[in-house]
């Protein structure tokens, strides 16, 4: 009985912990419509600060607590809202998700920079770990009682705030209809900022309460991901109801403890299953959620993409292959394989272009599908042994097929769901797969076949051999990956330009209207999800082969997230966005960090500066992600628009091309290094539109804005005709008649 009581109390405490974490999520989602993936990261950062105050600066606990919970928490939330989140109104769901993901990654990088992960950080319980009472033979610590009390207080407080108080009602309304709130004399932004401040405070409070309960060990990644377990609780309350969230959290906490206490959980499989419990629950909760009503395009999102024609995709594909080949001549063997790895990431990124960019659906775990394909290819596709081992075409195809099928199976129950829920379902699947398959090192017997899914925890993936093309050679690998990228890209362009692509675009813009054309949305989504999973599978196999040996770490959720983030930053509606985003995620960060690392090794004096810079690179990539709210269509969009405007400046383009050629000759002949070449070439590509705009503007008189027509110049018939056209009036109309039907 005492045992049962002990586990029950531990379960309640864990449930309280989950609830505190989930409550902040519910609060911010309810009031700003943004699901804050960075919630755990905020908790982590606050807790590190608390540690800094108490353990390093020697502040008393109460003071540190007041500062962290009372000042840092609200300030962090308010700052996030003011600088980042406020700019997210009218953006697509993916943009909102990505921005919080960027905050998550940035906070983790910053924490790892500030607090060396190589050292131990422990946070003590309030009143110390020894302060305890014994109830019915069960030891309960004061800190745990504080935690339970805090959970109840927060639950009651939030419930009252949402249902009884005026502020709470304004908060909730400001997500549904900010204009209405404004009409009623309230400022929706103020309500939202208040909500963010409160949510962030709850996050920090959760961190300070949770960490000592779990044992005190503080780690940037661990705490950040721990809050993800609380997602299931938040989803139990459909991200709206506080009481249901509370119930969900308690159930989750108790279940975790009872499973541990009364079910075998020490075997590899059982242990992995226990660890996956929150994700399994999350998936189940998502699937049994009642279906939302079909959404219309009530909000005009700000993202804009121009689909390419098949012809231009083909031309650019050929250009890409040529450029990559010429560039590969400048690189060392290591550089070539790094670029090949990046190119395989770019292929995975294409899976996001078609899924998110074209169809508006979300997948937070593209690499999980790469992992599925890799495991299948490893088991069925490897021929030969030793250095002669190769991955056959049939292995690659089987892997791709498996990824598509698994993609379909995962998506099917989740497809009735809206963007965010589907995203969470893919996340749950990604984490589940990572736990269950990529750690499955034991032998199984099924239908008389013995097999081990992930022998030894890592798979050696030999280079593929596609017919006569042997990918053992680095350059061959790179060129094959590039050609595959180009082919898939052309295929996607063709798909987008055709009827299927138009249907995808329609579904993305207005599911309700698309359904009213007779389109079965589930079938359309299922199809595009499978296509996307297949592409991710192909990219995943190539990525694994380029890496050589892959383990669980190669497919983690965090890698998927940073890939998605960088693709969105580059422009998820563009094939070139996938190229840039994939290259950056696959190798860009590592190359930059590595370069600064090497510089630090070579120059002992400024080593500190270079080390700091290499940290800064990581934080900066996250900052760029946070800025995506300002420019939701992506960086590529700007560059493309820049070049579009420059079509008139032919001499400039020819000049730049000539300059590039000279630069390349210099690099080939070894006059300048490949690094210098890359940097200069990149700068030219980026800066040319800017220069072009300046040149073009000098030659052309600026057009008068509409509202100033006729002010400084005579009001001619031409001007009037233009005005009519712009305002959409029949050209012949006479003033006065217009307002009649309004």
């Amino acid at each position, binding site marked *: 009985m005492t045992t049962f009581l002990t586990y029950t109390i531990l379960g309640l405490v864990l449930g309280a912990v989950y609830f505190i974490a989930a409550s902040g999520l519910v609060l911010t989602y309810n009031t700003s419509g943004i699901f804050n993936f960075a919630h755990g990261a905020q908790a982590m950062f606050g807790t590190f600060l608390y540690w800094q105050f108490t353990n390093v600066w020697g502040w008393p606990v109460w003071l540190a607590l007041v500062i962290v919970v009372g000042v840092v928490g609200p300030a962090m939330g308010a700052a996030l809202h003011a600088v980042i989140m406020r700019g997210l109104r009218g953006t697509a769901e993916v943009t909102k998700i990505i921005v919080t993901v960027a905050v998550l990654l940035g906070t983790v990088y910053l924490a790892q920079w500030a607090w060396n992960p190589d050292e131990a950080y422990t946070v003590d319980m309030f009143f110390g770990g020894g302060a305890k009472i014994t109830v019915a033979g069960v030891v309960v610590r004061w800190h745990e009682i504080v935690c339970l009390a805090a959970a109840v207080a927060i639950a009651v407080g939030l419930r009252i705030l949402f249902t009884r108080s005026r502020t709470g009602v304004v908060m909730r309304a400001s997500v549904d209809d900010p204009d209405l709130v404004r009409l009623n004399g309230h400022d929706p932004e103020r309500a939202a900022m208040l909500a963010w401040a409160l949510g962030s405070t709850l996050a920090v409070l959760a961190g300070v309460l949770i960490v000592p309960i779990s044992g005190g060990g503080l780690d940037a990644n661990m705490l950040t991901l721990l809050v993800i377990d609380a997602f299931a609780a938040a989803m139990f309350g459909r991200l709206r109801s506080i009481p249901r969230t509370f119930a969900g959290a308690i159930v989750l906490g108790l279940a975790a403890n009872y499973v541990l206490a009364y079910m075998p959980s020490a075997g590899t499989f059982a242990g992995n299953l226990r660890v996956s419990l929150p994700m399994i629950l999350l998936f189940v909760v998502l699937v049994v959620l009642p279906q939302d009503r079909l959404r219309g395009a009530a909000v005009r999102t700000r993202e804009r993409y121009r689909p390419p024609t098949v012809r231009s995709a083909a031309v650019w594909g050929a250009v890409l292959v040529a450029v990559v080949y010429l560039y590969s001549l400048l690189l060392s063997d290591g550089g070539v394989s790094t670029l090949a790895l990046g190119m395989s990431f770019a292929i995975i990124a294409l899976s996001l272009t078609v899924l998110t960019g074209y169809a508006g659906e979300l997948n937070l775990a593209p690499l999980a599908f790469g992992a599925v394909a890799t495991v299948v290819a490893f088991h069925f596709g490897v021929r030969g042994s030793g250095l002669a081992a190769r991955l056959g075409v049939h292995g690659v195809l089987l892997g791709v097929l498996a990824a598509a099928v698994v993609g379909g199976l995962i998506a099917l129950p989740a497809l009735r769901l809206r963007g965010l829920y589907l995203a969470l379902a893919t996340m749950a699947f990604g984490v589940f797969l990572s736990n269950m398959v990529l750690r499955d090192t034991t032998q199984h017997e099924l239908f008389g076949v013995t097999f081990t899914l992930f022998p030894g925890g890592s798979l050696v993936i030999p280079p593929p051999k596609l017919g006569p093309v042997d990918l053992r050679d680095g350059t061959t690998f790179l060129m094959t990956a590039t050609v595959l990228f180009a082919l898939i890209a052309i295929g996607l362009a063709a798909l987008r330009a055709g009827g299927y692509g138009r249907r995808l675009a329609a579904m993305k813009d207005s599911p*309700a209207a698309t359904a009213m054309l007779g389109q079965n949305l589930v079938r359309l989504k299922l199809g595009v999800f499978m296509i996307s999973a297949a592409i991710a599978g192909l990219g995943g196999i190539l990525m694994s082969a380029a890496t050589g040996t892959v383990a669980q770490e190669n497919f983690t959720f965090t890698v998927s997230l940073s890939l998605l983030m960088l693709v969105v930053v580059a422009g998820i509606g563009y094939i070139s966005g996938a190229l840039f985003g994939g290259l950056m995620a696959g190798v860009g960060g590592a190359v930059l960090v590595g370069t600064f690392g090497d510089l630090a090794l070579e120059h002992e004096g400024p080593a500190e500066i270079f080390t700091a810079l290499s940290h800064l690179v990581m934080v900066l990539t996250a900052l760029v992600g946070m800025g995506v709210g300002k420019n939701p269509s992506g960086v590529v969009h700007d560059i493309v628009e820049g070049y579009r405007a420059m079509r008139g400046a032919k001499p400039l383009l020819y000049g730049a091309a000539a300059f590039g050629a000279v630069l390349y000759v210099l690099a080939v002949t070894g006059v300048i290094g490949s690094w210098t070449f890359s940097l200069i070439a990149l700068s030219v590509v980026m800066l040319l539109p800017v220069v072009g705009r300046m040149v073009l503007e000098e030659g052309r008189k600026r057009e008068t804005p509409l509202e100033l027509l006729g002010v400084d110049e005579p009001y001619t018939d031409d001007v009037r005709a233009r005005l009519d056209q712009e305002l959409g009036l029949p050209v012949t109309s006479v003033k006065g008649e217009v307002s009649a039907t309004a």
Partner: protein
Amino acid sequence: MPLLETRGVTVRFGGNTAVDDVSLTVAEGQITGLIGPNGAGKTTMFNTITGLQKPASGQVLLDGADITKLPPAKRARRGMARTFQRLELFLSLSVRDNVRVAGDVRRSTGRRRRFDLEAETDRILERTGLTDIADQEVSDIPIGRARVVEVARALMTSPRVLLLDEPASGQTEQETEAFAEMLTGLAADGLAICLVEHDLPLVMGLCSMIHVLDYGALIASGTPAEIKESPEVIAAYIGTEEAA
């Protein structure tokens, strides 16, 4: 027999009854009006007929068959099409593609797989008078014409019954005239049209049958002449004007 019929449809949002026991009919080759003050439940009625909203009770029948449980897409495939009061155009597509995509869906779902998509698109654009702006982005065109694009898109599904939710709002007088002419033509071709509209002169001029909703309930049905005389209708309309 009417092509479209609702029997005792009731819709509730939480505790509020938005539509209360409404039975109405829409006949082939005619334009049927559905009018009523703001918040009377007209759009909710459309949503229920098209399957975007589940009724608490009641039935929807198309061509005599009970379609109450069918999802929107299946209803569309049986010949139902609509436009939206809050425009639901596909903003990333051009005007032509907005219309063409309806044909794409038709092709992919097995109804009349073989037809000349381009010619059909051109024909519909021509008929709705959109040829001159066919290649513009829909986000760039004025609202009045955008509503016509929605009609064109709906026509591209080759519907038997067409539900129009305030198609004339935002249109200029010329546009409205042309629009009315087009609707008459479509009805003459055998299409059943149900029209929600605030422009009462337009409704009175076009419709052969009118249903009036107020606070979710059907307060009158009849010819325009009958409706004009109905005391309930007058009371409902005067009541709202006082409120407004």
